[in-house]
């Protein structure tokens, strides 16, 4: 399936029969700085058909590293983050899983994506064989404080992946407002 462009999608389970457990890797590079640096935090949001977070417990990030039923779990850091998804365990009420990276809103100079380069999201098999990858195009990011990298979504009986690469200027609060969860 190879590399995607923003907005493109790829069939995962339809083209890989029997695919159940996948690994989603997120990565980027930060330009080093001596002062306070942006600290990027990956977040997986399990959404209902209306695009809203199913519940606050269905937000998976470094301090809540698994969803209640265990279908989405943070794994390792070979990429900046690796997230295990067991598609067979995803509750029927979850229509999509969106992968977001936000700048931690530390009051001491939280920063933006301006010093971030080479962001990507990739989907691989459980054996880490890459199925699809999206290298987010470089563009001015001086006012970007959160970004949707991509999403897994149901399509009839199958799962697909969509490349997004859409930035927020309103940070985690904007993300929370769109996906209707509490922060």
């Amino acid at each position: 399936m190879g590399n995607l462009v923003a907005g493109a999608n790829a069939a995962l389970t339809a083209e890989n029969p029997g695919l159940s457990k996948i690994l989603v890797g997120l990565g980027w590079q930060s330009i080093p700085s001596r002062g306070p640096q942006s600290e990027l935090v990956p977040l997986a949001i399990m959404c209902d058909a209306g695009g809203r977070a199913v519940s606050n417990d269905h937000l998976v990030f470094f301090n809540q590293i698994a969803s209640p039923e265990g279908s989405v779990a943070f794994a390792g850091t070979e990429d900046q983050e690796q997230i295990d998804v067991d598609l067979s365990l995803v509750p029927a009420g979850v229509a999509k899983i969106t992968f977001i990276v936000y700048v931690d809103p530390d009051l001491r100079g939280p920063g933006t994506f301006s010093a971030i380069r080479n962001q990507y999201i990739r989907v691989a098999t459980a054996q880490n064989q890459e199925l699809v990858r999206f290298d987010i195009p470089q563009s001015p990011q001086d006012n970007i404080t959160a970004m949707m990298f991509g999403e897994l979504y149901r399509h009839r009986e199958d799962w697909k992946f969509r490349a997004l690469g859409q930035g927020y200027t309103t940070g985690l609060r904007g993300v929370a407002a769109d996906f209707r969860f509490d922060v």
Partner: protein
Amino acid sequence: MALNRSSTRTDITYLSRRVKPAARAETSAPATAPPSSPVSPAAVTSLSLSRSSAPTSPAPATSAATPWAGARPAAETRPTRLFPAPGIGETRLLNAQTPMIRLDRRQSAIGSLLVTGATSAAWESPERVTGAMTVDGAVSGTSIKCSGNRPLVGYMDGTAVVALRHIRELRRSLFIGQPSAPLTVEIFDGGTVTLPAASGELRYILSLTAIDGVIELRAEPVPARADAAELWQEFGFSMTTNAAARRQGH
């Protein structure tokens, strides 16, 4: 009996990331697995914290080359042993009637936790690296700097700040204010709670404890005249020297 704090507890399996293949290979090497280890791998896998009603997952792959080899159902990854406690929205005041609140996992991990009115802040990492800072910027013990080039606990414009992105690098913290002034805590979602000023011979200081990434805030009654150094000692904060911190890998 003295506690052995130097070795990793292998019998506690909840809320940890799966062991990746490379790390698994390293930890299973004979050189790093002493035969006298009190907990054998078999004992670890036989310990189950899951409930009978918990959802079950297909049996994980057994190959060590499979990243999923260490995956566990969420029922095993969620601690359920914390006693019930009110949240930050359920009380405005921490005092003798409501001495303690607990933040949730999001509140404990997003942005900054601010303590207004604190004239000193002390911290201790899970590795027991300990330090303190006064509102004037004087530092005792060892500072802990996070990957974003910010102190784990520090001051900004006279307000004590805890970097919650790195809450797992903090074990506990102690915030002390002037006896005549209250302490106020604020978190990212706007939730606040206040510790009242001294009343007579007693006043409250704020104790923050991070338990597996969840923050508990407690109002601790102390003598109104006790100074910060006495209180650090009373609460077991022994300032580490930089040399000691280096030995502990900081």
